[in-house]
């Protein structure tokens, strides 16, 4: 099971591809088959082997703050960081 996952807000993503260059496991790709409401190809998580660790490096470089990070943690350590 994947340790984490990312969610790209496609209303914010502008397809700059910076996140695809920093992912340590190279799991982010641009979806060339779709357009966002702004007309860009959105970034998406391609993780068939469930390798994403939720390290948040993609969120750190995203200029649009379009990426949210989820991580599976022990129930005792779970803290709601944001809504």
């Amino acid at each position, binding site marked *: 099971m994947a340790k984490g996952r990312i969610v790209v807000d496609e*209303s*914010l993503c502008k397809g700059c591809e*910076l996140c695809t260059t*920093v992912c340590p496991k190279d799991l982010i790709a641009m979806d060339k088959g779709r357009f966002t409401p702004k007309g860009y190809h959105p970034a998406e998580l391609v993780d068939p082997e469930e390798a994403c660790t939720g390290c948040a490096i993609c969120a750190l470089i995203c200029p649009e703050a379009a990426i949210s*990070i*989820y991580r599976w943690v*022990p129930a005792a350590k779970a803290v709601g960081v*944001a809504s």
Partner: protein
Amino acid sequence: MAEEKLVESLIYAKPESLYPVGTHYCPGCTHGVAHRLIAEVIDELGVREETIGVAPVGCAVFAYNYFNMDFAEAAHGRAPAMATGIKRVSPDKIVFTYQGDGDLASIGMAEIIHAAARGENITVIFINNANYGMTGGQMAPTTLPGQKTTSSPLGRDVEMHGFPIRVAELLSQLDGAVYVVRRSLHSVANIRKAKKAIRQAFEVQQQGLGFSMVELLSSCPINWGLPPVEALQWIEDHMLPAYPLGDYKVHPAIAKKPTR
């Protein structure tokens, strides 16, 4: 060993200090990264309700539409003067300006130098992208020698146009400035360092030590004519040698905790 129960936890989302709206910045522009770092720092310090920002003229002219806090819009280059007034009237507020290089280093050079010389207790976030982004990539005071812009199509000729201004080094000479550093936004490691510096700058203001400025080397993919990924590489290849990163002035009260 028993299976530990795991729950899915949201560990990172857009900071509360940013409105949940899209920006007008070009794809891959690191203005967005700078906005997010400032917002994260303000969230972490818990001072959103006490913070007043001053927006510049330039690409960041609409910063007040993105930061979820009180904001004022200054005339071109006059953000430090406006911040001076706000801070003196409301000394209990956190006041910061967000300025580009055309705004701060050209038309606003007098304001920034005198605000620093007076030791105004404000924080300045200075975005250095080596051109005038908003108006179409003209030559700025920070444009590198030989760099082609729309107003220097043959490259900046130092015989005719002079030399670039290194703002962090310049302001560090003033006694009123207590925290002056340069960071870059071209890689993940440097973004982390930039955030620490921004946090330090706000803490300097909270402690009432004086003027603080963080210069951030930033990309301008559209006006440089480069894809966003190559623009970050251009910062590393061309801007870092001309604008060395580092701490140019750190007040002794905080020098024991280096941010690098």
